[in-house]
């Protein structure tokens, strides 16, 4: 039997899914966290337990052990407001409907009126259904009373109060699944008046005072203070990641030197053939293995992802997870909406962009929440071209940071300028208009530590299973190409661009090559080249702007289609050429601080000018 979890966005379907199946899926506090469906096995609880199992841990334990429990397939479907939507993730939801035998309609109990719209549409499908009234704990805080027995008798289907954070009500839901029935469609008239009648029968509101969280909501959306607060939150988040991540990364480097290096030295002695040494351990510098520089699969291939990147990633995901669950991201969408419209984006583009600073892949997947193809295209072009992922940023911090913080700022401001100018340009040449923002603001919620931990683990697991092997593969490829002499050939081919336009030694071409597989590995490859500060800034900017890693590229191809992919590829090639050339030229005449100033001036003029042009049109 296939059971679908369906409901409005941000009602907690994924959290319930986790409690029902034990399969950890990403949950957050904003509409559109789930953009694709996840399947899991839901083992129904044993019957005739006779008391309130939700309150009884022993019962839950017994339920876990019972061997003869029935299993059903449970599918976590992306949230949808309606079954006839234009948004891609919502279309997926509507298409999923045909495949399910039973529907579990998850409803936000604090907002019945809005949630019942989808319920009414689902009623018309004449499929067996049960309803879960999620966020039951919040109804009590908010002074909302919902008479679920009454709702049950109106709709003629089981209605179970649940709490996605604690898992309350999940056993009940399992026990009552077999009572699933085709719901009655009560009342006459249009859908909203029918809903109004139902709500007036089952819901009663009592007065209450504003909570601290509601005050915080108002302060963070204050017309004057909102934007400074958002910028401070972002700056604080990245400062935390850089400081704490950097500290941990240094400790990891020490740990690797104590524990891993001797092992590698030993291995170097016992390994037989030279080529195997070269691939696994890499090149020695003054008879020493360099963890970042040797480029062996077992040295650099292990150290860069685990020792260098993971500490940053860990703290980034902790901070991001907190912001997501707290409910801040959609508010950032509102605060940045005005500015984003100037560069052809949409306030909600903030979510793909924020996710991309962690890893571009979830960023690209989050494009599905954007309405039009135009927004998806512009957002994809900007994020995939100019936003470095945390793995890249980690290496950039350590690589460019050696030459002084001003070079990190130079790289950041150059990327940002390119993002804005690219946005203004694409906004002009892409047909159509960015639609106005419509976005629901979830209330602030205190993140549940268990779900936070689960989410962090899921993300780190993704990093270890997908990024780390690719990283090692990238290094393997370089070493093999180097050994076979193909690399030298490629240096020759790429020399006009690498040396001619960007003013880099021709060996930097190997970084460009690896950049296709893993960007962080590519940046690490620059280290043995002994570049000057300006050269390394040039190389890094070119590398970031240049094609994304292969994994992002495949996901991007699937999400935007061939035509847009080709366009984005052309944009990337052009911006990479220009970006490298720009820093190479400017760097030879101006100090980094002045380049940053020049970039700021250009961007501000362009922003002011584009506004004027639009008004005239």
């Amino acid at each position: 039997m296939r059971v679908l979890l369906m409901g409005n966005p941000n009602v907690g379907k994924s959290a319930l899914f986790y409690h029902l199946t034990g399969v950890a899926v990403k949950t957050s506090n904003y509409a559109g966290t789930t953009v694709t469906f996840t399947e899991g096995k839901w083992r129904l609880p044993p019957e005739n337990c006779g008391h309130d199992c939700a309150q009884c841990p022993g019962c839950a334990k017994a339920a876990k052990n019972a061997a003869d429990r029935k299993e059903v397939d449970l599918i976590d479907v992306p949230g949808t407001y309606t079954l006839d939507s234009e948004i891609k993730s919502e279309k997926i939801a509507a298409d999923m409907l045909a495949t399910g035998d039973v529907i579990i309609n998850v409803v936000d109990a604090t907002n019945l009126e809005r949630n019942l719209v989808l319920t009414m549409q689902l009623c018309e499908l004449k499929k067996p259904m049960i309803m879960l009234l999620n966020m039951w704990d919040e109804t009590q805080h908010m002074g909302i009373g919902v008479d679920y027995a009454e709702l049950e008798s109106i709709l003629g289907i089981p209605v179970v109060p649940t709490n996605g954070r604690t898992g309350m009500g999940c056993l009940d839901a399992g026990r009552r699944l077999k009572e699933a029935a085709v719901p009655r469609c009560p009342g006459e008239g249009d859908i909203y008046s029918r809903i109004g009648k139902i709500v007036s029968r089952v819901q009663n509101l009592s007065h209450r005072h504003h909570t601290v969280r509601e005050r915080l909501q108002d302060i963070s959306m204050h017309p004057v203070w909102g934007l400074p607060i958002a910028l401070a939150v972002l700056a604080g988040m990245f400062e935390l990641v850089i400081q704490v991540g950097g500290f941990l990364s240094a400790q990891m480097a020490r740990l690797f030197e104590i524990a891993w290096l001797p092992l590698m030295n030993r291995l170097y002695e016992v390994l037989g053939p030279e080529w195997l040494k070269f691939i696994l351990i890499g090149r020695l510098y003054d008879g020493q293995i360099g963890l970042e520089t040797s480029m062996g699969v077992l040295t650099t291939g292990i150290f860069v992802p685990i020792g260098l990147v993971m500490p940053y990633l860990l703290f980034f995901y902790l901070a991001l997870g907190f912001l997501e669950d707290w409910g801040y991201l959609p508010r950032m969408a509102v605060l940045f909406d005005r500015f984003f419209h100037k560069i052809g984006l949409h306030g909600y583009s903030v979510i793909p962009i924020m996710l991309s600073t962690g890893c571009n892949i979830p960023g690209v997947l989050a494009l599905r929440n954007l309405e039009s193809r135009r927004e998806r295209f512009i957002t994809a072009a900007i994020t995939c071209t100019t936003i470095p992922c945390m793995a890249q940023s980690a290496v950039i911090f350590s690589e460019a940071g050696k030459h002084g913080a001003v070079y990190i700022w130079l790289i950041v401001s150059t990327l940002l300028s390119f993002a804005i100018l690219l946005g203004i340009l694409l906004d002009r040449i892409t047909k159509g208009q960015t639609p106005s923002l419509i976005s629901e603001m979830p209330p602030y919620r205190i993140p549940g530590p268990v779900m936070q931990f689960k989410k962090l683990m899921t993300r780190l697991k993704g990093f270890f299973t997908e990024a780390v092997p690719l990283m090692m593969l990238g290094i393997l490829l370089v070493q093999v190409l180097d050994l076979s002499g193909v690399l030298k050939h490629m240096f020759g081919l790429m020399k006009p661009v690498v040396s001619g336009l960007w003013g880099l030694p021709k060996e930097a071409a190997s970084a460009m090559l690896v950049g296709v597989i893993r960007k962080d590995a590519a940046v690490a490859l620059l280290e043995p080249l002994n570049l000057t500060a300006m050269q390394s800034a040039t190389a890094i900017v070119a590398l970031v702007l240049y094609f994304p890693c292969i994994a992002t590229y495949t996901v991007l191809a699937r999400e935007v289609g061939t035509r847009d992919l080709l366009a984005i590829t052309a944009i990337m090639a052009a911006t990479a050429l220009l970006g490298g050339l720009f820093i190479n030229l400017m760097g030879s005449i101006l100090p980094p601080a002045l380049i940053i100033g020049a970039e700021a001036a250009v961007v501000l003029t362009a922003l002011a000018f584009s506004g004027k042009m639009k008004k005239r049109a």
Partner: protein
Amino acid sequence: MGMSVVSMADMAPGEQGTIYQMPNDNEARNRLEQMGLRCGVAVGIRNRMPMRGPLLVCAGRTEVAIGNDLAADIKVLVAGQCGHGSMRKRHRWFR
């Protein structure tokens, strides 16, 4: 004090009214209606972002952010006089 119809984009933070007319754009109207913003629904402006930025509108338990252009197409019935001397005037800076 009579009733008057104003564009939602001209309302000030704290002002309340009843939605009188929804935008013509079907897609936007549908999305708003799904979130609970329909003709006859009581709404209040919770906040608005400066420089013609989005408005935060609450309707019942739902809080929705609406872009300024779209809000201009939503007409709201408010109590009191409109235009001169109203609360809106003080918030000219936001427009």
